[in-house]
């Protein structure tokens, strides 16, 4: 079933890590195989933040194969070497878990495609997110478990999207968890609730155009599809509107960039979404109880109609 939630503060920052945790925890009955956060934190914008993994969580319920921690260490060493070869300087390094790392990198580039391809050419390494503000954190378990594991409740920023996953069409692992980074675009992330039925056709077309897929999760297609549209010159909103006819199936999805948040709903309106919109805050989720976790007082909400696309700026 899966649940999605997102919020954007306009004109101010807030504790988006804690707020999104509350929203996603309210949706945990929609799936707690894995939970993911795409948080847009307040930064000075100088360095890239790279969240990446060198292995999988092989805990209870995982469909991944157990690996020795020494393998993770070796992969990390190769990542460090590759970064040095590319002239990227690691300013700050955090290793929250043996398989999950966060680097702040001093690196000048406008095209992350070559950078990402080189990092991900290292077997077992996947970039979860790359950007000046975006940080994608995803792991097995419900929202609170993931939030506690990565200490996300203190993160201050302007906007965030997240996903509570019930695995249906691909494995219970981090690589299939949402959000997906809009590779190779800095600060683009996607979460999705639904099923896409023309996944393989679209995937083949996009792979022929040089785009990469890290999982077999149909939702990843949306991130890659939008990223490709933007690569061809479309705006975020144009790419999302195009997706209504380009993607077949049932879906409600969110896309976030460094300074905006968007939603799209398929033409059959088969997947739920409740939306609250005011001058200083937009909050939305698969169910109203998600919004209630940040706005417990009486509010006006509505369901966007079929084929609707909306984009908000910070």
């Amino acid at each position, binding site marked *: 079933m899966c649940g999605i939630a997102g919020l954007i503060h306009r004109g101010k920052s807030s504790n988006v890590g804690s707020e999104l945790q509350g929203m996603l925890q309210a949706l945990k009955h929609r799936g707690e195989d894995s939970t993911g956060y795409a948080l847009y934190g307040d930064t000075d914008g100088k360095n890239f933040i790279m969240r990446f993994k060198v292995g999988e969580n092989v805990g209870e319920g995982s469909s991944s194969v157990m690996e020795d921690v020494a393998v993770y260490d070796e992969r990390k060493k190769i990542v460090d070497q590759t970064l040095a070869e590319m002239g990227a300087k690691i300013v700050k390094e955090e290793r929250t878990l043996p398989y999950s790392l966060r680097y702040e990198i001093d690196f000048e580039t406008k095209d992350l495609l070559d950078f990402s391809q080189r990092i991900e050419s290292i077997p077992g390494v996947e970039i979860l997110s790359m950007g000046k503000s975006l940080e994608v954190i995803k792991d097995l378990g419900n929202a609170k478990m993931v939030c506690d594991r990565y200490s996300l409740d203190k993160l201050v920023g302007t906007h965030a999207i997240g996903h509570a996953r019930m695995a249906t069409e691909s494995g219970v692992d981090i690589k299939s968890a949402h959000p997906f980074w809009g590779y190779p675009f800095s600060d683009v992330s996607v979460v999705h609730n639904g099923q896409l039925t023309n996944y393989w056709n679209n995937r083949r077309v996009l792979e022929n155009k040089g785009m990469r897929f890290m999982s077999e999760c149909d939702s990843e297609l949306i991130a890659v599809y939008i990223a490709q549209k933007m690569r061809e010159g479309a705006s975020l909103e144009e790419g999302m509107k195009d997706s209504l006819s380009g993607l077949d199936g049932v879906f409600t999805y969110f896309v976030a960039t460094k300074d905006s948040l968007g939603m799209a709903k398929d*033409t*059959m*309106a*088969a997947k*739920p979404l*409740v939306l609250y919109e005011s001058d200083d805050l937009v909050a939305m989720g698969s*169910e*109203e*109880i998600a*919004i*209630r976790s940040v706005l*417990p007082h*009486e*509010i*006006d*909400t*509505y*369901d966007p*109609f*079929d084929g609707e696309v909306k984009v908000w700026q910070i």
Partner: protein
Amino acid sequence: MANIKTIDKKSKAQSMGMHTEVLTGRTQQKFFNPDEAENFYYFGTYDVDFNKRTDLDVMNMSAPEANKEIDNLMSQGYGTIVIKNPQGKHSLGVGILNKLNLIFEGSLGYFGMGSCDGPIVRINGRVGWSCAENLMAGKVVIEKNAGSCFGAAIRGGDLICKGSVGARTGIDMKGGTIIIGGDAGAFTGFMMQRGRIIILGDVGINLGDSMYDGTIFVGGEIGSYGSDAVDAELTLSDQDWLRRKLKVAEIGEDFDVSKMKKIVAGKKLWNYDNLEPTEKKGAI
């Protein structure tokens, strides 16, 4: 419509052996006498006093706990119950088969007021998907917006949303009336079999798709018609009924019903030519 009993010639399907039962028209008999409705009580329901009123704060209750407490209050004779802090919880107020005046001070989540028969309900907020699904009788009024599948499969009663509703409103409805003050989404009246839907605003694509019977009235623009949905003449009788219904519903009382569009099923199916049992009474 042909009387099934008088058909001498077997249909093609029957001659192929697909139907072995000889239809006798029993399915068109009336098993429900509207004259007896007012005295009808379900087993285990309560004799409540509308003047006996109480508040129930459900902030820290789960939906089953809240619903059990509503039942408990009815057993004590409370006929007016005000629910405080519903907080968008799912499945509140379900399965009430009793006369009751129920007021929600806030919004409900999914499946609110599902499978009810008899209560008069006012929700001073919004409702999520599938509000009042399978409603048999009574009246449910929503002051704000509603999600998709609003009034799915209702059999009777009045379901009123003063705001806008999502997709598939009145899907599979088999009776009753749904009134929408704002706009309605795609597939409104999808596979509806009886009953009436009134939409004062615009409606999305595929209106009345695959409808068997029933009537849809639209005041605004129609995105597109679904399969089997066709325009019909808006009669003076329709207009009179619309005015009375909107007045009773406290919604769109001054709305110019003469300009509304009437949409019905383009196909005529053998078991869908009867008035609602309660409407028979009115017609007489």
